[in-house]
């Protein structure tokens, strides 16, 4: 019984962590290139509503996920044009993007409130999903959950091991140097911003098609902001983003279970726990032997105007 319920808790945690993981991974790449996009919440909502609308209209979850990704990408493109081509202030533009995303998604989704959707199918691998404990934990999810793990590996590998990743980091650390040795700073940043948008859109699609398969306004309920915080928490490292998303999701879910089990701690204190845990880990990272290695990209948030 205890093992069984642990499995159930873990399953719920995976659901809570996955949207955060997508959005935070995307934002990590964006920030590594030196761009700060505070519009994650807006891009997630755009992704959520587009995914839902397309999945309901076409009946295909796959098309829905693709549409969500595309919608995130499209809103990120608007951000790119404003901040990269027109060199607008990134903080203000990002905030505006969130507000825009909230409004646009509410408008586009008005006709979809109260409409049922078929949730994304769980991958059912014959023989494996029924294995006790390991089966449901490892093989009982929809494809998007696996994609989030694959994406973590891919982003980590790309940033660390590939030429493209090194160029991207160089652009984020010193745009002027990167530019002077001939790299296309704006082009690299555009690609990073679009990737970030696609990932946020994917996270939104997971929300509206799998986590809570429905469309209601502002259903992200602040997850975009948590994703932003996770990037800092993870000190711009993909594996720590994964750990952070699961830690935050885990503490959030565990406190719900603890309440249900009647643990005698005030509910308000429980609700603080995910944030407390996050702050605590941040403090340990900042004060520990890794001191000074928070690794914020040096050019983060700074507009780049090629001088020639």
């Amino acid at each position, binding site marked *: 019984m205890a093992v069984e*319920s642990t499995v159930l808790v873990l399953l719920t945690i995976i659901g809570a962590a996955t949207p955060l993981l997508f959005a935070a991974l995307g934002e990590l790449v964006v920030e590594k290139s030196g761009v700060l996009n505070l519009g994650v919440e807006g891009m997630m909502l755009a992704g959520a509503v587009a995914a839902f609308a397309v999945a309901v209209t076409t009946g295909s979850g796959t098309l829905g996920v693709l549409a969500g990704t595309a919608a995130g990408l499209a809103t990120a493109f608007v951000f790119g044009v404003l901040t990269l081509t027109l060199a607008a202030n990134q903080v203000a533009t990002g905030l505006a993007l969130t507000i825009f995303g909230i409004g646009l998604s509410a408008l586009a989704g008005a006709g979809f409130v109260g409409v049922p959707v078929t949730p994304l199918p769980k991958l059912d691998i014959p023989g494996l999903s029924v294995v006790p404990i390991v089966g449901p934990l490892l093989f009982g999810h929809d494809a998007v959950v696996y994609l989030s793990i694959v994406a973590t590996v891919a982003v980590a590998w790309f940033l660390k091991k590939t030429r493209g990743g090194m160029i991207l980091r160089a652009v984020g650390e010193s745009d002027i140097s990167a530019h002077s040795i001939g790299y296309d700073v704006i082009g690299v940043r555009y690609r990073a911003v679009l990737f970030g948008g696609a990932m946020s859109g994917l996270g939104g699609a997971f929300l509206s098609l799998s986590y809570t398969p429905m469309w209601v306004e502002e259903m992200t309920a602040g997850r975009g902001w948590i994703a932003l915080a996770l990037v800092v928490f993870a000190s711009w490292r993909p594996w720590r983003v994964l750990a952070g998303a699961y830690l935050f999701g885990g503490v959030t879910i565990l406190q719900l279970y603890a309440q*249900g089990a*009647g643990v005698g701690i005030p509910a308000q204190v429980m609700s603080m726990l995910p944030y407390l845990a996050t702050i605590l880990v941040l403090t340990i990272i900042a004060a520990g032997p890794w001191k000074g290695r928070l690794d914020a990209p040096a050019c983060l948030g700074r507009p780049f105007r090629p001088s020639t």
Partner: protein
Amino acid sequence: MTARVTRRDFVLGTAATAGALTVAGPRAFAAEATKVGFVYVGPVGDFGWTHGHDLGREAVEHHFGDKVKTTFVENVAEGPDAERVIRQLAAGGHELIFTTSFGFMNPTLRVAKQFPKVKFEHATGYRTAPNVSVYNARFHEGRSVCGTIAGHVTKSGIVGYIASFPIPEVVMGINAFTLAAQKIRPDIKVKVVWVNSWYDPGKEGDGAKALIDQGADIICQHTDSPAPLQTAEARGVHGFGQASDMKAYAPKAQLTAILDDWSDYYVKRTQDVIDGAWTSQSIWWGLKEGMVKMAAYGDAVPDNVRQAADATRDGIVAGTLHPFTGPIKNQAGEVKVAEGATMSDEDLLKMDWYVAGVEA
């Protein structure tokens, strides 16, 4: 005509428009149509609490046509932000303003002081002023009906309750539900999970998952999104809709839903303002007045249970059944309401203790 404004538009637009509105003065627009403002805590598309108020607003538009112009501001955070939004509406010539969340109470009262000619209606609060009325619905009456059904339908005897904040309104609902359910199943346990939010579909759904994993086979909610009920549907247990008929999200799981119907009240109070007959009052309407309604029973409610639920409802309407009739014990087992006695409205509205059987 409707003006749809979000809180954030308000924040951004304040600097630009504040001057213009103040100069124009409150009566400038009122010559053609009476302006009625609504302040919402959530989005109109939440399919729950705010949605219900917005239906009431639409009823006002429908009833009065061109004679009335309504404005609503959605997603207004409880606190200082609310005061700014309410003041803006008052300064913008609205003669009647409905503020539809408990946390808008103090902001409403503060603005009301500054605009003595504007009439304010605050939902679910308890403080009135010469130009501030309070109105509320006896949702707990609906929860008694739900409790009756739950007592019959539950097999495990464990009910999961997704709650927002431990304010009297919510506490009262949990207690009314539990007392009604205990009449059928004396050993029933109501496990409460607080999500500390009125609206966070993900967290509400996760709360429901946690409770179902811990044995609950009935899910109740005092939060605003359909997520808990949808989770109940996905896990094959039952639940109750909140504020709207949520059958679309849970065709099998929804046993019934507690519906808010603000239409009649909003139309009446708007008429009072037009007639110059508006006076400050405090009303608390329920099943009897039709401010609280029950949705059609789901297929999972058998005939004998329907009759029991109807009996609870009819008893409350007729005044023969009071949801809080003693003996009522608190969690510590102390008798709080003596045998045969009923709780006064005043005591209900400051309820801060749970009845025995609640695990919160």
